């Protein structure tokens, strides 16, 4: 055997497990892009599961690996995996799309949700987090996603961007915010149920 086994720097078992989970979660985010539910509040605005995926990444993978999962999702989409809304792909979504602020907010929001739920960068037993903590974390996550989404939209569509934040908010965020309550309720149900196998 020609291999010099000492020169191989193996990835530790725990890190391997985290990478596998982050990658599978990123792929799940991509699969969510193909699923939408009819919106009871506004028929023209279907409910997608991407934002729910961001919340759960922070809750289940923690702030660090949750954010890494979101980065993997974005990079995979940028180089051609059909993971963005409606199964689209390409770096245009990250550098030119009016929705780029939403996409860039995902790693930040996942990290923020994870930091609140796990009370730090480490990973704790998320099932023991109280409902107010979970809801508060996801409200914060929602605020980050829509704040960055609105700024991104204004920056792409309007000049100067700061003069048109109101218009940007109305077009890019307002129609979608009410159903976030549904997703937060679903996320609490998912986390609090015993349906998810041990993390």
């Amino acid at each position, binding site marked *: *055997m*020609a*291999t010099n086994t*000492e020169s*191989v720097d193996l990835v530790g078992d725990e890190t391997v497990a985290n990478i596998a989970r982050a990658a599978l979660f990123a792929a799940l985010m991509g699969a969510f892009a193909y699923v939408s539910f009819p919106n009871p509040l506004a028929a023209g605005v279907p409910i997608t599961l991407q934002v729910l995926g961001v919340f759960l990444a922070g809750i289940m993978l923690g702030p660090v690996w949750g954010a890494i999962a979101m980065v993997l999702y974005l990079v995979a989409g940028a180089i051609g995996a059909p993971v963005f809304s409606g199964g689209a792909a390409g770096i245009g979504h990250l550098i030119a799309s009016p929705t780029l602020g939403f996409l860039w907010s995902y790693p930040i929001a996942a990290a923020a949700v994870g930091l609140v739920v796990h009370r730090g960068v480490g990973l704790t037993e998320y099932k023991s987090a109280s409902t107010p903590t979970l809801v508060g974390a996801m409200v914060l996550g929602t605020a980050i996603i829509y704040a960055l989404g609105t700024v991104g939209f204004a920056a792409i569509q309007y000049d100067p961007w700061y003069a048109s934040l109101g218009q940007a908010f109305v077009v890019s965020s307002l129609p979608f915010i009410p159903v976030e309550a549904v997703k937060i309720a679903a996320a609490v149900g998912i986390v609090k149920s015993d349906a998810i196998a041990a993390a």
Partner: protein
Amino acid sequence: MISVDNLTHAFGETVVLDSISLSIDDDEFVVLTGPNGSGKTTLVRHFNGLHTPTAGDVRVNGAPVESDLVAARTAVGMVFQRPEDSFVAATIAADVAFGPENLGLSHDEIDRRVETALAAVNLSGRGDERIDTLSGGEQARVAIAGALAMEPDQLVLDEPFSGLDEPARRSLLSHLDSLSADGTGIIVVTHDLRGVLERCDRVLALSAGSIVLDAPPAMARQQLPSLDVYVPLTADSDREHSRDSHESAGR
């Protein structure tokens, strides 16, 4: 060569393997059988350093597995149950190259290994195909190629026939024949002995964490029914027959 000495493995309070000792040479074709939950998968994962012993030790080519994981993992190749979850790339050649890349080999050597491994499982020239378009039997062969590209001395296959139809099963068996003839040790973990009993040199049976049989196939064929190990033996008719008698005994 794998040597296991007094290996005990416990998950919490549950003892899955209870002081097992055995050794398997590089030129053997071994079948490891036993009912579900008997500890087969846990045992073979120790050969590759995927578990740490609760007590006892596991050596590959004389060295304790945990002292040099890379040496153990290159000497003993693993093909897992449900191969579809063991692929790291979307296309065949990119997946098979993963192991050799991790070993830091040169590009020429990686290419050579990928070609040799694909040839060994009859997938030459199909390296650019997408894995998710392949049949279950083809995916099983890609997983074997991925392990072969590490150029192992011994190859462990965990329940390789589950989910395969009869032609895919027969094709897989003939690939195992030729690997064995070329000098790779084969260790097949299965609860379904059809087609493997006549090929192997040795049968090991586990039950409740202990080895209850270690015998050549002819002897195993006679003793297995008397042990508390329910396994389908050879032809389909045998299996049907034993299942019938099982049921009638229950009525």
